[in-house]
């Protein structure tokens, strides 16, 4: 599960500081994709990303050089989404539009969530919620988070509110941790394939890169290891033994370990047996083990922007808290989150069973379709995505996988196309970090059929 990459495939990251400048140049368009895209770009120049930095002269720009890099990177990253938003599928108004199965979101339980969030206990407004508060999050929320994680992570001892810091989303957590644990230009190690947006999260402010080559290659100092369990995009769940192995490895090299457990409640196959790192009796290096969780995936609320950090390391918690001013969330939302997390009955008896049932049904549906088409894929019991191998289907040319952040409308000969989408096309997005021709096919979009 911890894949050491082949030598010819190297992490390209768009780092925006001087330390990473040498990665950019004519190959800018590939910084977000894999090695494979280089060949494609040569054949299809019109697919180059927007705003080749070579074309941006400093005379015409109002931005600093750092600003120009940020803008260029953002334009390329957003290009795909812009194309999608301009032609979004709608059952009635735009049946031939693009369906997005490439963003990891759980859209299956909106009915349950909207019911819960409309209840009267969620509507409370109080002056203290409208005023400046403790930047690391209201105490009532941190207490609730500690209790929640103690219960669902099955921690051997109750977790403490002082070790909780609340921010507006997992992305902000990555940014803050990258900034306080590393100097500019340093790196975190991450198993590949991985959820690509993390590259941007640690780079924008943090100016660090993600490395999936071995520790001291190329003179880059690696300060930490990122583990995502359950894993995105593979859906793997690490066993307690595996977790211990990785944590011991990290301790040996004095690395911080950031464990992202954002899918911990999205394990829909009971037989999988998920174990949180917080459930381990003894951590090899508790001062360097930091756990992240958010409501974005497990509660299908990516738009709510609520993420938490749990760490016993007071220095790290304090340093992250120093940046919380820039990653704050509304007091009213904090109150609603506390209410949500507190409601164990609803979570255990209504939400989780229903959510898991729906995830499982959607997973089964897509798996059957894939099997019928003879497409190999990884079958795992967690998350919202299936890691699909389309190398065969593309007849070796790799053309259908325009390794470019743009969305590419590719007529894919799926027998069930009309059933799946009732639309003209199914969009396939190449996932930049994995081997050239595998693709992530999200399955938790609300199936319209």
């Amino acid at each position: 599960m911890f894949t050491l990459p082949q030598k010819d495939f190297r992490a390209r990251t768009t780092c925006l500081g001087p330390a990473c400048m040498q990665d950019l140049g004519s190959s800018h368009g590939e910084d977000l994709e894999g090695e494979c895209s280089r060949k494609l770009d040569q054949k299809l120049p019109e697919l180059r990303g927007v705003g080749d930095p070579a074309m941006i002269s400093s005379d015409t720009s109002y931005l600093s050089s750092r600003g120009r890099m940020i803008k260029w990177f953002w334009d390329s990253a957003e290009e795909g989404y812009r194309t999608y938003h301009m032609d979004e599928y709608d059952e009635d108004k735009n049946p031939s539009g693009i369906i997005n199965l490439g963003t990891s979101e759980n859209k299956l339980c909106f009915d349950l969530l909207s019911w819960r969030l409309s209840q009267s206990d969620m509507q409370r407004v109080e002056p203290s919620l409208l005023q400046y508060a403790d930047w690391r999050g209201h105490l009532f929320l941190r207490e609730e988070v500690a209790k929640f994680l103690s219960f669902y992570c099955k921690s051997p001892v109750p977790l403490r509110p002082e070790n909780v810091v609340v921010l507006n989303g997992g992305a902000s957590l990555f940014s803050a941790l990258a900034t306080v644990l590393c100097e500019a230009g340093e790196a975190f190690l991450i198993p590949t394939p991985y959820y690509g947006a993390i590259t941007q999260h640690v780079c924008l402010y943090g100016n660090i890169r993600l490395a999936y080559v071995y520790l001291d290659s190329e003179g880059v100092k690696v300060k930490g290891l990122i583990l995502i369990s359950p894993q995105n995009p593979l859906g793997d769940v690490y066993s307690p033994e595996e977790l211990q192995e990785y944590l011991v490895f990290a301790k040996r090299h004095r690395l911080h370990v950031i464990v992202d457990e954002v899918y911990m409640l999205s394990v829909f196959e009971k037989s999988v047996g998920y174990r949180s790192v917080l459930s381990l009796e003894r951590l090899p290096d508790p001062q360097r083990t930091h756990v992240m969780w958010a409501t974005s995936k497990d509660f299908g609320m990516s738009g709510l922007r609520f993420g938490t950090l749990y760490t016993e390391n007071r220095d790290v918690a304090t340093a992250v808290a120093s940046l919380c001013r820039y990653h704050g969330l509304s007091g009213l939302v904090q109150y609603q989150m506390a209410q949500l997390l507190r409601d164990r009955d609803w979570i255990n008896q209504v939400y989780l069973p229903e959510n898991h049932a729906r995830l499982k049904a959607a997973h089964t549906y897509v798996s059957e379709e894939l099997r019928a088409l003879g497409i190999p894929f990884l079958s795992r019991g967690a998350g919202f995505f299936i890691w699909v191998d389309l190398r065969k289907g593309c007849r070796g040319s790799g053309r259908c996988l325009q390794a470019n952040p743009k969305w590419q409308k590719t007529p894919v000969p799926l027998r069930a196309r009309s059933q799946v989408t009732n639309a003209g096309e199914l969009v396939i997005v190449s996932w930049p970090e994995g081997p050239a021709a595998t693709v992530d096919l999200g399955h938790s979009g609300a199936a319209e059929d």
Partner: protein
Amino acid sequence: MSHRSDTLPVPSGQRRGRVPRDHSIYTQLLEITLHLQQAMTEHFVQLTSRQGRSLEERRHAEAICEHEALLSRLICQTINLLQSGAASGLELQVPLPSEDSRGDVRYGQRAQLSGQPDPVPQLSDPEAAFVSRDLSNRGIDISVFYQSSFQDYNAYQKDKYHKDKNTLGFINLGTSENKLCMDLMTERLQESDMNCIEDTLLQYPDWRGQPFLREEVARFLTYYCRAPTRLDPENVVVLNGCCSVFSALAMVLCDPGEAFLVPAPFYGGFAFSSRLYAKVELIPVHLESEVTVTNTHPFQLTVDKLEEALLEARLEGKKVRGLVLINPQNPLGDIYSPGSLMKYLEFAKRYNLHVIIDEIYMLSVFDESITFHSVLSMKSLPDSNRTHVIWGTSKDFGISGFRFGALYTHNKEVASAVSAFGYLHSISGITQHKLCQLLQNTEWIDKVYLPTNCYRLREAHKYITAELKALEIPFHNRSSGLYVWINLKKYLDPCTFEEERLLYCRFLDNKLLLSRGKTYMCKEPGWFCLIFADELPRLKLAMRRFCDVLQEQKEALIVKQLEDVMRE
């Protein structure tokens, strides 16, 4: 493993206990040693926070740190004994360092402090964090810089005054917040149009801000800023706070180490927003309180002063990329006339500088005889591609906990670059909906909220200024904002920043949190910022504490002056 408790222990840089007035020698010694410790602390920060040094330089710096740490321990012991000796009146002997049980701290690469909580002032938390083995240098820098400045605010958060439950708690007149209209806002935010749960609100949003909100912000600003033509939603970016907007602007307009000019005194929070992530320096353009031929009113901002500051910065090799203006000004409350505003913008254009204008108090002008002119109301800007406006609901609507700030700029390149930070400074979809509803209801704003808010601000301002006049304390700000800029020079002898800090500590000892001039980068010591936008009962209690402290201070001064006379 650190054993620090959640409450930050008393930092060594500030005294907490009562000043032993009867033991002036101890007081002097105490102050000298505290001052020395403060200086060492600052030096320590400098040494540990500098990045990119050679291995040799680093080893050298660490050796110095080690020596300073031992010296620091000695000083701590001295302080302990002075305080206890002062209380008991015993003759003291300062013990040798070898007897110090806390001198067992080792400083290697970055050793961790063995924490044994002490009942008396000791190495402050920031200093302990210096030697954290877990944070990067820039992590330490951020942590120390921030925590040392916000310790008192954090202490206040943990011990807030409450009229029934905590009558001895802190009253905060140092944070700029409008607490006068909580009743109106609470009511408004509970109305039914506020509660809407749509699936799009719970899903990944447009990181620049949901289109419905940006359209509303554009419409709102067009109306309230009296823009000559309709403002474009595509030029709007919304983030979770004006400080986030400022941080993102600093990132995209400057490279690390570059700078903005800011007329001082100014809102000290900008220093964090420009430095913590973006590493941009703020260069103060010092304004003077004294009225002279060239300074026709106190703290007047002129183009001459701007040019002088710019020239000086360039001579020092600094790259200045922009000018930051706050209008209405914080902490002075000044409102720039359209003529002056134009002059500053023309100055900026002459030197190709960006101008960031923070208009966060634009609806908090309570003096009816004054009209506020937003920069967005000007028919033509000297350099519209380099003029960027910040506004938010925190002050004008008193909902600082909502976390909302907006950027308006005609420059689509800048707007686009700032959008890149959208997902790190995102606002919950539900919050965006509520904000949209709030801003949309112009009738409620114009007929209910604004008149009531301005009336209450006026009344509170009247009360405060009457108290200040009775105490014969000169003050500045007659027209806008939530604060007055007061002059306490006559209570300081000598009038230095150190004395200003000690007076600030005296206020803290009496559970009153004010802001002192140094944090606003004011050149002249003795100024304080006092926020009056609080409910009258709390304000009255705060002023009583205020008067008590000044009385104490006066008496201490008299004692000191008598001693000086006796010595001669």
